[in-house]
Every structure is written in C-alpha cells, then in structure tokens.
C-alpha cells in the first residue's frame, strides 16, 4: 500500500513538472525581423508567430510584393505610373490595378482637403530639387517665380477611365507624384499579405510610415500576454529626441510629415545649406511639402502625425493636414471618423485632436 502511494506521488509530480514545461513551450513564439532598402527609405517588417517557418515565409512574400509595388509607383520608373508621366498628356496610358486604386484614393483626399493634398505637383516638387534621388544628391534650390508660374497657372488635373483602365493628364505641367500616398498603400498591401498568413502580430515600418496589427496575443492556456506596440513620435528639431510614445493596442497606422525630412536652408545671399533637424539662425528652411496652390513649402506647421485605420489614410492625411495648417487641419481631422493627430506648430506648440486628449505629451516642444 505504502509503496503504491509513493509510486503514485512520483508519477503525479512527474506529470505536474511535464505539464509546466508543456505550458511554457506552448506559449513560445518566434519573432522574425527583416529590412530592405525600398522607396528611398528603410522598409522593416517584424512578424510574430507560433511557427517560425510561417513567419519567415510571410515576411519574404511581403517583401516581394513591396518590391514589385515600389517599382510600380516610381514617378519615373518602368511601371505604369512612370509611363503615364512620360506620355500621359498626349494619349491615354494603360494603368495597373494598383495605380488605379491609388488614383481613386488620391482623388478622394484631394476633394476632402480642398486641394491641399494634390498628386499632380510632381514638377513643382522637382523645381525645388526634391527629386526621387534626394537622399543621395540632396541639392535644393529656390525656383524663380518664372519657373513656378506656368506650373501653377496651367490646369493640373488627371482623368481615369475605369472601363479601359487608362489614365490621362490634362497638360504637360502635370506630373503625378504619389510620394504622399503610395508608401502608405504599399504598407497596407504588405499588411494584407501578413494578415492572410495567420500571424500573431506584426509591425511594418516604411521609414516612419507604420502599421501594426495584433491578431492574437501570446497565450499560455487561459493567461494572455497582451502587450501594445509602443510607437514613438520623432522630435522635429532634434534627431536624438522623441516627442512621446504612443501605446497602440489595436490595428492602427501612423504616418508623420515633417519639414525636417527633406529640406535645405538658404541665407539672404542665396547660398544653400544642407538639411538639418535644428533651425539655423539667419537662414530660411525650405522643405518638400509643397502647397499645391502657392508652389511654396507649406508654412504654419513643422510636423504632423496622423493615426488612422490604414497606412494610406495616415500617409495622405499627414500631407494634407500639414498643408492646411493648424486650424483647418484640425478641423479636417475632427470631421473624419477614426482619425487622430498630433501636430507641432512653427511656434513650437504641440496640438492634439480631442481623441488623444488623455495621452501624455508635452504641450510645448521641449
């Protein structure tokens, strides 16, 4: 009798120990991270799954799609957008499904923002020197009014035929620049691929254009290890600082438009100095977010961060709000559902939309 009980005890202890080990490994997850240089920036994907193999396959498929789309949306490349920019003012040009989708979205944001977001300004942007290979060459210039005037006076428009899947440009002054929207679209496509792969969660970061999703928290039997993604917002005047950190629990996207991303300084003599985060005394900052109505860099705000359900919305709206300025920008954000924003004015005040009232950010740029 005694012996039987001892054997039972040892067995029970063994089962107990084994089940603890099992519970631990059952909660084990693999995190796969990879990065590639795409669209003039770093494109990073971080995916978590129970199965390392599944996560690796998903990340690889996601990068393949991102590479394909990057070419598709290049302003001057071999894709259908490049083709449209070369011949679109003479004849209708066949467009890919992706380009048409983004055109439709761009049209929507153009109307919503009363023209503050406008993809037809490729040539205006170029005239400031903010070309596609800016990160390498990076030489800006202040264009003369004679250069800007014709580009501003011509009707800049485009038309898309959804039946023939073609597009046409209204004049030779139009060059379609999807710089303020395509990156977001690509992030969304990549997220769609990752979501199809049944991952636990993932983060996609295209140079600060971020989208995350949290399908399943890490789970150990009944206990859920719920953890938000923690995303910081860049300080617009100091490379080494952030404004604050946002805890993102749900599926969400963030994008920031700032006057420090692509810029240059000019002094009164017309000398050009390279872009810096910090202001330079006695010099004027010129940046890449061009107001489509004036052809000049938009003033009033120095940084706009948008939170939205998709990266494309966040991307397009951060540009639109930046151009609209603090009052009209905030008005637009408040009119839209599920959209929040954090902005920094040129007087260094930090403003938030009402939905972010309880986040802990300073009210002045530190």
């Amino acid at each position: 009798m005694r012996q039987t009980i001892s054997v039972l005890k040892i067995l029970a202890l063994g089962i107990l120990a084994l089940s603890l080990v099992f519970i631990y490994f059952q909660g084990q997850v693999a995190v796969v991270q990879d990065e590639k240089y795409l669209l003039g920036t770093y494109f990073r994907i971080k995916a978590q799954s129970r199965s390392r193999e599944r996560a690796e396959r998903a990340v690889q498929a996601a990068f393949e799609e991102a590479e394909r789309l990057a070419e598709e949306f290049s302003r001057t490349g071999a894709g259908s957008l490049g083709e449209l920019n070369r011949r679109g003012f003479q004849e209708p040009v066949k467009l890919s499904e992706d380009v048409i989708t983004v055109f439709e979205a761009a049209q929507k944001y153009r109307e919503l923002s009363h023209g503050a977001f406008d993809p037809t300004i490729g040539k205006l942007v170029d005239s400031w020197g903010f070309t596609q290979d800016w990160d390498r060459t990076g030489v800006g210039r202040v264009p003369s009014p004679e250069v800007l005037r014709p580009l501003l006076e011509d009707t800049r428009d485009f038309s898309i035929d959804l039946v023939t899947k073609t597009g046409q440009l209204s004049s030779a002054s139009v060059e379609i620049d999807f710089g303020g929207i395509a990156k977001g679209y690509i992030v969304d496509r990549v997220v769609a691929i990752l979501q199809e792969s049944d991952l636990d969660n993932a983060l996609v970061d295209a140079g600060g254009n971020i989208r995350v999703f949290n399908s399943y928290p890490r789970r150990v039997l009944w206990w859920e290890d719920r953890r938000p993604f923690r995303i910081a917002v860049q300080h617009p005047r100091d490379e080494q600082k952030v404004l604050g950190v946002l805890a993102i629990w749900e599926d969400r996207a963030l994008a920031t438009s700032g006057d420090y991303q692509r810029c240059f300084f000019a002094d009164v003599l017309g000398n050009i100095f390279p872009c810096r985060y910090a202001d330079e005394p006695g010099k004027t900052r010129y940046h890449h977010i061009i107001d489509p109505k004036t052809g000049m860099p938009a003033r009033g705000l120095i940084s706009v961060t948008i939170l939205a359900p998709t990266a494309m919305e966040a991307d397009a709206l951060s540009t639109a709000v930046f151009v609209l300025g603090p009052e009209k920008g905030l008005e637009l954000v408040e009119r839209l559902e599920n959209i929040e924003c954090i902005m920094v004015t040129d007087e260094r005040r930090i403003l938030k939309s009402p939905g972010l009232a309880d986040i802990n950010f300073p009210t002045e740029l530190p």
Partner: protein
Amino acid sequence: MNEFWRTVNRYLTWGDYIVIGLVFLGAAATVSLLRRPVEAGGQWALVRLEGKMVEQLPLTEDREITIIGPAGETVIQVHAGRVRVVESPGPQQVCVRQGWIQKPGEALICVPNRVTIEIPGNSGIDAISR
C-alpha cells in the same frame, strides 16, 4: 470540502507539499530566466548594409570600422560601450547627428549609404514615426 482535504492529507505529508512547491518555484525560475534572452543583449552592435548583416561589433572593444556602401564610406566608431557614426556620405547627415547610442533597441540609420547599426534588444519602443 473538509472531507476532501482530510482524504488528501492522509496520503500527502508536509514534505510532499514542499516538493510540489519546489517544482513550481523551479518552473517559475526557469521560465523567468528563459523568457528574455535578448535583454541580456546590449553587448553587440549589428551593422547591416542594404539589409544584410556585415559586421558584429562587441561594444566592449573600442575600435573603428569603415563600411563601403553605394554612396561611399561610412565610418563607425565603438568607444566605451557606445557606438556612433563618425562619417557617412549624404546631404542630411542624420545618422552622424544622432550621436552615440548604447541601449538595447537603439539604432542608427544612414539612408543614403544604406547602412544601419542596431543594438539588438528591447528598448520598449517598437518603432519611431518620423
């Protein structure tokens, strides 16, 4: 309920309870030790060129290396447990101006030359919207 414990206690001595407790404690200790293997990081800086790892620099060893990228030379310096970019081509010099990094999760990104330097680990921040 009392009947239940009386039955259980007839077969289990207090020594058994101690053994069971020890198994749980041992499991908890093992899990907490295994759980965060990366957090022991912060000893290395990983240097990548166009997304591919090219160097692993121990932060305990002062040195300076040069990476040849598509735009030119990026000079990376390790000193007193910290790492920085001394020189890198490009008009904006963002990664040079970021200065020293030393904590796990921190990173320097030199976009023009496609070089990134990362101290692996978890800083509590997953990404920066910039």
